[in-house]
């Protein structure tokens, strides 16, 4: 087994932490502090991390951000640990699970969990662009803010974006995504009113007004959080696609590969095929090239390229073909994908027999859309609407980003899949609405200026009409929301 870490990269200087070592199924593995267990294992050459619950299908990495459950493993005796968001430490004992795990009996980590009650002004769930931006504003006005993220690092998915952002310099246009994350997180950590709680999973809301959260650490805590206001900015998860052998290790979400190569500096494969030509698919193809991966092409089921022309042009001029009117029909391989087969589609978007093209690839990246992480809002009883064009179930909200639950707000991809600029803006709108309720007179002015920019300028761009239309379908008037609340 080699070391698949990227040493030299045209954009990113990988700063690796102290060397640590742990065991994986009894074998000693070395990794660097700051890596997740899965990133460390991937760098060491492991590609299979679990099996299906029945134990008959192999599971590789897929989402890399603690959402998809394809890497559930036993860590120091604790089963069902998502090793993609579990930081490596010296001396960990990591084991693969075959199928469903046994209830742990004498784990050395099972102790009485300490409970802690926290009172804050605002609880923000999610530390990506929407949550971080909201926290920055609210903390700046002196409100006590708790930002909870289940990852061990804040910044959400900005940390794996290596391209310079589009838009306006007000919203970090021209700055690379991971640099924006560094800036935002450093601003937050310098603000005494803001606490970022990492490895903290907010699992539900109780009648008495408390949010329950598990904070994993040393020691692990059970938090009961009481907040006057809540902003749920929990983002979205990558979708899979139906085709034969779509679960072979090496078939992963485009974002999963971004996490590996751009956050941890681990090469996800040697030869790749990308499915889906939206901006995510186009951008990941370019980033694969930068990481030294050969990109054999992008398959796009529609007749037109889905993403922005400028992203497409960047990969086309480096020789990456875009097969419009094509979809993936199957993958082949043993314990890893070795071949992918795409086919032309007819007018009904169904594969046309006899038009197959084969690619010898060890990586198939799915860039076929995102599903908002709505489960907490759903548990709380927020009203939702099913909008496939915005990613699935989307919470209803007012134009001030307030959900059907008074003083509970939504922002970012959870409010309908869009992109980082609008996530920043929605976080701002929610924050200023909270500030208005707290009696800051200037907040209304700020909010209305931002709302005007969002709806009357930014979202007037022809290329964002689809997401704008979708957002309009889940945005209701104050009066309508009052009526819905009953």
């Amino acid at each position, binding site marked *: 087994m080699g070391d698949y870490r990227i040493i030299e990269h045209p954009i990113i200087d990988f700063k690796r932490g102290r060397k640590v070592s742990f065991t994986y199924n009894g074998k000693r593995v070395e990794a660097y502090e700051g890596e997740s267990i899965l990133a460390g294992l991937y760098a060491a050459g492991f590609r299979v991390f679990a099996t299906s619950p029945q134990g008959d299908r192999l599971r590789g990495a897929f989402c890399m951000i603690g959402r998809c459950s394809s890497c559930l493993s036993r860590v120091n005796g604790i089963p069902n640990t998502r090793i993609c968001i579990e930081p490596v430490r010296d001396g960990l004992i990591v084991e693969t699970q075959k199928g469903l795990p046994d209830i742990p009996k004498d784990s050395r980590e099972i102790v009485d969990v300490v409970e802690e009650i926290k009172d804050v002004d605002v609880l923000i769930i999610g530390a990506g662009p929407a949550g971080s931006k909201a926290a920055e504003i609210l903390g700046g006005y002196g409100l006590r803010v708790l930002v909870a993220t289940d990852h061990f690092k804040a910044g959400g998915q900005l940390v794996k974006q290596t391209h310079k952002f589009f838009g306006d310099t007000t919203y970090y246009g021209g700055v*690379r995504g991971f640099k924006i994350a560094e800036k935002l997180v450093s601003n937050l950590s310098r603000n005494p009113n803001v606490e970022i709680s990492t490895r903290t999973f907010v699992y539900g809301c109780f009648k008495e007004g408390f949010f329950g959260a598990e904070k994993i650490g040393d020691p692990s805590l059970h938090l009961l959080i009481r907040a006057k206001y809540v902003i749920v900015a929990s983002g979205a998860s990558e979708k899979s696609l139906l085709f034969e052998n779509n679960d072979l290790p090496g078939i992963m979400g485009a974002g999963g590969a971004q996490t590996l190569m751009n956050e941890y500096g681990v090469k996800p494969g040697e030869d790749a095929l990308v499915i889906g030509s939206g901006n995510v698919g186009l951008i990941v193809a370019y980033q694969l090239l*930068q990481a030294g991966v050969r990109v054999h092409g992008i398959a796009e089921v529609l007749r037109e390229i889905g993403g922005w022309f*400028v992203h497409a*042009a960047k990969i*086309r*001029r480096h020789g990456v073909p875009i097969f419009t009117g094509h979809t993936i029909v199957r993958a082949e391989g043993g314990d890893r994908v070795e071949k992918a087969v795409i086919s032309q589609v007819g007018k009904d978007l169904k594969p046309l027999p006899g038009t197959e093209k084969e690619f010898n690839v060890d990586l198939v990246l799915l860039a076929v859309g995102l599903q908002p992480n709505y489960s907490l809002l759903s548990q709380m009883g927020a009203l939702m609407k099913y909008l496939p064009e915005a990613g699935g179930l989307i919470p209803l909200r007012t134009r001030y980003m307030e959900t059907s639950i008074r003083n509970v707000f939504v922002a970012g991809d959870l409010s309908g899949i869009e992109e980082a600029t609008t996530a920043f803006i929605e976080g701002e709108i929610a924050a200023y609405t909270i500030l208005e309720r707290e009696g800051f007179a200037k907040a209304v002015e700020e909010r209305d200026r931002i709302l005007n920019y969002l709806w009357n*300028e930014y979202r007037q*761009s*022809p290329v964002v009409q689809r997401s704008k239309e979708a957002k309009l379908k889940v945005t209701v008037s104050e009066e309508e929301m009052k009526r819905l609340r009953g």
Partner: protein
Amino acid sequence: MGFKETGVLTLEEMMRAGLMPSEERLRKGPVALLECPEQIPCNICVSACPFKSISMDKIYDLPRLDENKCVGCGVCVAKCPGLAIFVVDVSKGDKAYITLPYEFLPRPSKGAKVKLLDREGKIVGEGVIVKAWEYEKTWVVTVEVEKNLWFDVRAIRIEGR
């Protein structure tokens, strides 16, 4: 088939979008080609230009180049998030000079021989780097190419990796 199907912009499409500088201006010396034919919400090039030669009213407008103000300095090449701006100079003898963004390894250096790629990644010739500078990890590379390739060359490959 248009650029939305191919990912490749043609001269006709550039002209139709009003993005081509005049022939007269091209003959005068280096000038920016803003290969940005879609109304995306982005205005980074406007504030990037030290000569205020790029303008737009709304953030989603196509960029407009004032070809008399543009001196072909290439600052916009470095700053455009879409890597969609090139500077071409067809004013000198039988060679053309193309300034393009480059974000790959190995890093460019003056005098290096490079493979010249067109908008589809096809190798259309060899050229020499005559100038290279870097801004926030984007290299701005000027290559000397055969004059007839002035509208074709849009990327380079540096051998040795």
